[in-house]
């Protein structure tokens, strides 16, 4: 198609349509946000955060040690005792509304910053991450003065200081999921962003300053796993963690026996179940959204496709054609569908598991898309002939890799979907509502999407069962995690 004359297009080969990286207002150095001010780490330690699409450093970020974490927790405690616990719900609401508005006002900057630091396509950070982050603040702002009506009895009290550890897959959005309900309920927070994606949380800290949120109500400590461990070991009243099941178990052990309330939002191996009467074109889109959204770096990704045998061939044929169309590349290009893998370590893990999939006998199909030379990339991949025993059917890949299995009856679909230690999310595709509800009732998953996938809304509770964690984020239910009820 390259030699086709421009006036008679044989295909629309989109020219690059990149966002300008300058919109992110990147700074060379970022400090910790403690007690309302940006400070260096007490030992001056820093780490580099990279652009995963180019492997080039973006900024130096302070690395919080034990002393810094202690200072942040102390600042949160002071702010809780002296200010925040005495601040009325209506006042707290107004701060949260301000934050929501500031995120909306600075949305483009935040979107570009997020795509730079995380590698996700600008279309997603612009259309999903940032607007949803604002929406969570907006929604929970509305709860701050209505806690009496949330169903937890009259005058429910906050817990105190919350230590919150968030992952790298939706850095800003996860910060919003954690901070908004905590602040609405009257807690103060120490937030620990992921090591590879600290920047948007620090931009959010600037927004908190612009909102004139009282000092110490929110503190941000950046660093690696040891920073998170220090936070969990601190005298906090609550720990909220989103991340891998492995680390979640570790945290649960660490807080065992201490007066700490815990919520965990961990991994998953979501089944996307397709019945033969499903709307096929939307099914294909749903499968693609389910596994290739955010490069598959989604704990609730529909990483197992369970398709009824009678339509398996048809679905797979259409799916392959659609996978070939996915545009992989520069996250800042507005036409990019799949961006960069967030880190070298994650890329290695995906490679290892997919290599295992081939060794175990599954058939691999990889999109023929061209990949950039530098940066961390993995082409969208679909495994067929997958058996329940294969590692790629059981372990969370956390990448753009789909495992396809088939079933014959609704019972078999449910049995296979539930044959996992996880239980975060599932999808059901059918035009028959009765069957969808029958299946949904039997699925052991915190969320079931019917004829859609990967939908999030501040009004809707999200969270897992079994080894996908406990506690809910979103909706009235999400308040419970931050109330002493």
């Amino acid at each position, binding site marked *: 198609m390259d030699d086709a004359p*421009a*006036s*008679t297009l*044989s*295909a629309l080969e989109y020219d690059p349509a990149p966002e300008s990286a300058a919109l992110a207002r990147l700074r060379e150095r970022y400090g910790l946000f403690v007690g309302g001010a940006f400070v260096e780490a007490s030992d001056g330690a820093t780490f580099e955060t990279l652009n995963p699409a180019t492997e080039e450093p973006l900024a130096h970020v302070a690395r919080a040690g034990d002393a810094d974490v202690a200072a942040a927790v102390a600042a949160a405690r002071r702010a809780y005792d002296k200010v925040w616990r005495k601040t009325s719900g209506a006042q707290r609401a107004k701060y949260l509304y301000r934050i929501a508005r500031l995120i909306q006002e600075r949305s483009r900057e935040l979107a570009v910053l997020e795509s730079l630091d995380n590698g996700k396509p600008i279309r997603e950070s612009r259309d999903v991450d940032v607007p949803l982050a604002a929406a969570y603040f907006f929604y929970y702002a509305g709860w701050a003065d209505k806690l009496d009506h949330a169903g937890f009895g009259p005058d429910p009290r906050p817990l105190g200081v919350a230590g919150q550890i968030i992952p790298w897959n939706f850095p800003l959005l996860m910060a919003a999921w954690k901070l908004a309900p905590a602040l609405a309920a009257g807690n103060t927070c120490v937030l620990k962003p992921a090591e590879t994606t600290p920047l948007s949380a620090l931009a959010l800290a600037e927004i908190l300053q612009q909102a004139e949120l009282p000092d110490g109500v929110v503190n941000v400590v950046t660093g690696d796993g040891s920073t998170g461990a220090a936070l969990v070991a601190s005298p906090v009243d609550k720990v909220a963690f989103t991340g891998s099941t492995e680390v979640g178990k570790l945290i649960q052990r660490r807080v065992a026996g201490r007066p700490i309330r815990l919520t965990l939002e961990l991994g998953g191996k979501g089944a996307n179940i397709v019945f033969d009467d499903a709307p096929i*074109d939307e099914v294909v*889109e749903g499968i693609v959204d389910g596994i290739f959204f955010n490069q598959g770096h989604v704990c609730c990704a529909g990483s197992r496709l369970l398709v009824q045998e009678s339509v398996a061939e048809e679905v797979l044929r259409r799916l392959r054609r659609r996978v070939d169309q996915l545009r992989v590349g520069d996250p800042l290009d*507005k*036409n990019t569908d799949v961006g960069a893998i967030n880190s070298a370590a994650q890329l290695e893990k995906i490679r290892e598991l997919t290599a295992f999939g081939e060794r175990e006998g599954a058939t691999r199909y990889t999109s023929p898309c061209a990949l950039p030379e530098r940066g961390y990339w993995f082409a969208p991949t679909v495994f067929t002939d997958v058996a329940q025993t294969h590692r790629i059917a059981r372990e969370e890949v956390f990448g753009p890799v789909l495992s396809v299995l088939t079933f014959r009856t609704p019972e078999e679909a449910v049995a296979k979907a539930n044959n996992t230690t996880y239980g975060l999310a599932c999808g059901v595709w059918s035009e028959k509502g009765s069957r969808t509800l029958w299946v949904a009732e039997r699925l052991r998953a915190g969320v079931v999407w019917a004829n859609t996938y990967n939908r999030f809304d501040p009004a809707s509770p999200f969270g897992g069962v079994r080894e996908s964690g406990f506690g809910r984020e979103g909706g009235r239910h999400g308040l419970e995690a931050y109330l002493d009820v």
Partner: protein
Amino acid sequence: MVEVSPAPLRLVVDDERALRPRPGASVPVVESEVQLRALLRALSGVDAVGAEARAAKLATRSLKRETKRAAIDLALSMVDLTTLEGADTPGRVASLCAKARRPDPEEPDTPTVAAVCVYPDLVSTAKTHLAGSGVRVASVATAFPSGRASRAVKLLDVADAVVAGADEVDMVIDRGAFLAGRLGEVFDEVVAVREACGPAHLKVILEVGELVTYDNVRRASWLAMLAGADFIKTSTGKVAVNATLPTTLVMLEAVRDFAESTGRLVGVKAAGGIRTTKEALRYLVVVNETAGSAWLDPALFRFGASSLVNDLLLQRRKQRSGAYARPDRISVD
């Protein structure tokens, strides 16, 4: 039921990514209403939320630079420049034809539009003024736009247009019969019109705004294709809801699937309400990513529009000069 002979295999696509018919593919011969009903019922449903989300996502595609320039020219070459007013006169049609031949006289390399679309009584006027230009003459027929006339009257209407020299005939289906479930009647009528068209290409207007649901749009698309339509067209432009992006998406899915299962390529015409370059380019993106590159051709995709051309011409100038052009530079027709 009238028998339809399988249409000739026209699939000539060398593009790697383009679809190919499955082995042994041909257009099924529809012999009874029962069979037709079964064929249409076997089609997958459309989830409205998903289809609209897909269209909205594709609408965020950003065409820049060379792609945009090429896409504007392509869109121009796909326009059926249309006038369908009670007040139409030979003079009005003549000036429209002049515009069709040379859309932008100051920019001689501007592509001509695909066709000029008029009522049957003005076909001969259009034919005269377009002679030698390569621009085709399309005529609406079959008691356009309501289609509420007897079969005999509709066929006479078609014959009138064809005799006057129409290269393309845009018929409307009987939505009343379709919605009442008299599918055989709708089918037979398309077949009869197809025959009356002779060598003229047949575009079948579904009037999606009256069919309302995407499931109906998909079934009506297949019905028209099975009955021999060369094109399926969204709308008359005369009702409240005309072409929309998700409706066009569903129709493009239908022509893609039809080509795959029968080997026959059917075109799509989006008509009514498309006024800006921005909207037109969104349609081209949906064409590109749904039916595929084979349909990026005036032989397989058209816009039924009147004011769209002027916006395309303005944007075309903007692409070349870098400055926004003054609307007065473009002729008002």
